[in-house]
C-alpha cells in the first residue's frame, strides 16, 4: 500500500511523516529517525527492550503500528535527560549498577518512568519486580535495577517536595 501521512511528536519535536502502514513505531524510530536508543530485542512483545512512552504510558513499540498512533506524543530514551543532566532514573541506574551489557537498559528506564507515573508499586521491592516483569535482562542485573528504582523514586519525591516549597 502507498504511504500515509502522519504526525508524531517525538521527544518534544513535531515530525510530519509519510509511512507505509506496516511500519511499527519501533522501526520508524530506529530506521527512519535514527533514534536507535530504543532497542529491538525479540520484536514480539516478550522482552521489553523497545519500551517507549506513548502519551505518557509505557508500551512495546514493536507491537504498535506507527500509523495507528497518528497524533501521539512519544518519549524515547533520547528525550529523557535534560542536556548533560541525567534524569534521576538514569543516574540511579548508574549508581546501582542496574545493567551490565546495557542492551535492555533504555527499555528498563522507560518502563521505570512508566511504573513511577502509574504509582502502583510504591516502595515495595516485590511490587517493583512485578511491575517491571515485562522487561527482561539477560545479564540478570535485576538486583541493581530494583535498588535503582527505589532510589530514583525517593529522589524524585524529594525533588517534587523542593519544587512545591
Amino acid at each position, binding site marked *: 500500500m502507498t504511504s*500515509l501521512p502522519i504526525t508524531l511528536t517525538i521527544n518534544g519535536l513535531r515530525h510530519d511523516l509519510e509511512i507505509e502502514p506496516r511500519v511499527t513505531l519501533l522501526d520508524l524510530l530506529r530506521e527512519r529517525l535514527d533514534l536507535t536508543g530504543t532497542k529491538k530485542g525479540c520484536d514480539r512483545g516478550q522482552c521489553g527492550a523497545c519500551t517507549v512512552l506513548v502519551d505518557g504510558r509505557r508500551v512495546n513499540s514493536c507491537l*504498535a503500528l506507527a500509523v495507528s498512533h497518528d497524533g501521539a506524543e512519544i518519549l524515547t530514551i533520547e528525550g529523557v535527560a535534560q542536556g548533560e543532566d541525567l534524569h534521576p532514573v538514569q543516574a540511579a541506574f548508574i549508581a546501582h549498577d542496574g545493567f551490565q551489557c546495557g542492551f535492555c537498559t533504555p527499555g528498563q528506564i522507560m518502563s521505570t518512568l512508566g511504573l513511577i507515573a502509574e504509582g502502583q508499586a510504591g516502595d515495595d521491592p516485590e511490587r517493583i519486580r512485578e511491575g517491571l516483569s515485562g*522487561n527482561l535482562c539477560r545479564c540478570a542485573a535485576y538486583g541493581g535495577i530494583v535498588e535503582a528504582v527505589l532510589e530514583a523514586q525517593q529522589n524524585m519525591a524529594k525533588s517534587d517536595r523542593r519544587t512545591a516549597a
Partner: protein
Amino acid sequence: MRDFDYIRPATIPDAVAAAAQPGSAYLAGGTNLLDLMKGGITSPERIVDITRLPELDRVEELPEGGLRIGALVRNADLAHDPSFAKAYPAVAEALLSGASAQLRNAATVGGNLLQRTRCSYFYDTASPCNRREPGSGCSALHGENRLHAVLGWSEACIATHPSDFCVPLVALDAVVEIEGKDGRRHVTLEEFHRLPGQTPQRETVLEPGDLIVAVRLPAEAASFAANARYLKVRERTSYAFAVVSAAAALTVEGGRIRAARLALGGVAAKPWRARAAEALLIGAPAEEASFLRAADAALAEATPSGDNAFKIELARRIVVRALTSALAGTPALMPALPASPFSNIPGARHDA
C-alpha cells in the same frame, strides 16, 4: 510482515461494513495481532483500525444495575479503576496477573476475548495445525503437550484459550455485546467461545464483520465483591500464561454457601465454567470438605490430552485453594502478588 491496506473508519457501521470484506482484520491494541502477522500465522489484506471509534472506551453503570465495559477500554485502565476493582475484585486480579504492564497499557477488553491460543504449533507455520490450517492435522496431539487442554478437547485440537480476564468474567455471567451487519446482539461469554470439535478454526460465534462493542456484567456480579479471588499458577513468577488458573466467588451466610461461582483457565479452548461444582457448593457448609467435593466435580470430565495428566490434579488443588482464599475474603491490596523466590515477606499477601 506482509503489506496490507489500512483504513480507519469513523463510525461503527463503516467499520462493520469494511471488516465484512474477506481478508479483513480489526486492529485495536494490536498486541496479539501484530505478533501473529509478524510470524505469518495470519496475513490480513486489510486492517480496519477501530481505535478512533467513538464511545467504545467508556465504562458505564447500567440503569438496571450492572456494568457496561466498552470494547476499547485498556486492560490497565479497567484493572486500576478503583470502583471497578472494588466491585469486581477477581476480574481486576485476573487482569493484573496477565501479560506485562506495557501490554496491559495497550491491550483492550475486546481484544482480550479474541486473542488466539499460544499453542506453539499454532505459531509454527512449518507444523500442521487444524486451527491455523483446517484439515492439516494436530501436531500437539503427539508433540510437546504438557500445557494443553484437559477438558473439552478433541482429536482435531487440544489447544487452550490463554485469557486470564475471561475466567472471572465467565464465572460472573458476563455478556458480549456484538454489532454485526444485521444490527446488535448479545451473547453470553460462556457461549461466545467454541470448543474445537471437528472445526477448531471456528473459535468464536462471530461472523465476518462482527465487532465486539462492549462486555456487560450483570448486577448480581458485584454481590460477590467481599469473597472473590483469581489464582493463577505459572511456570515463572510473572509475565507468563497460566498452567492452570481459577476464579472463585462466594456469598456466605451463617457458615453456609448461599451463592457460588467457579471457572477455570488454562484447561480448555474456552474459559471453563464449572457449573456442576457450583451446584454442589450452594447450600453446603463453607469449609474445605465442600471445596474438595466441588473440585472433584469440576474436574470429573477431565482427561489428559497428552503428557498433562498432572494438570487435572493441579486444577483440583487450585480450585480448593481459590475457594479457600475467596472464603478468607478479598484482599485489601490488589493484586495479591504471586509467590516469588525473591520475596522476603512470607505470608498471605504472596499467595497466588
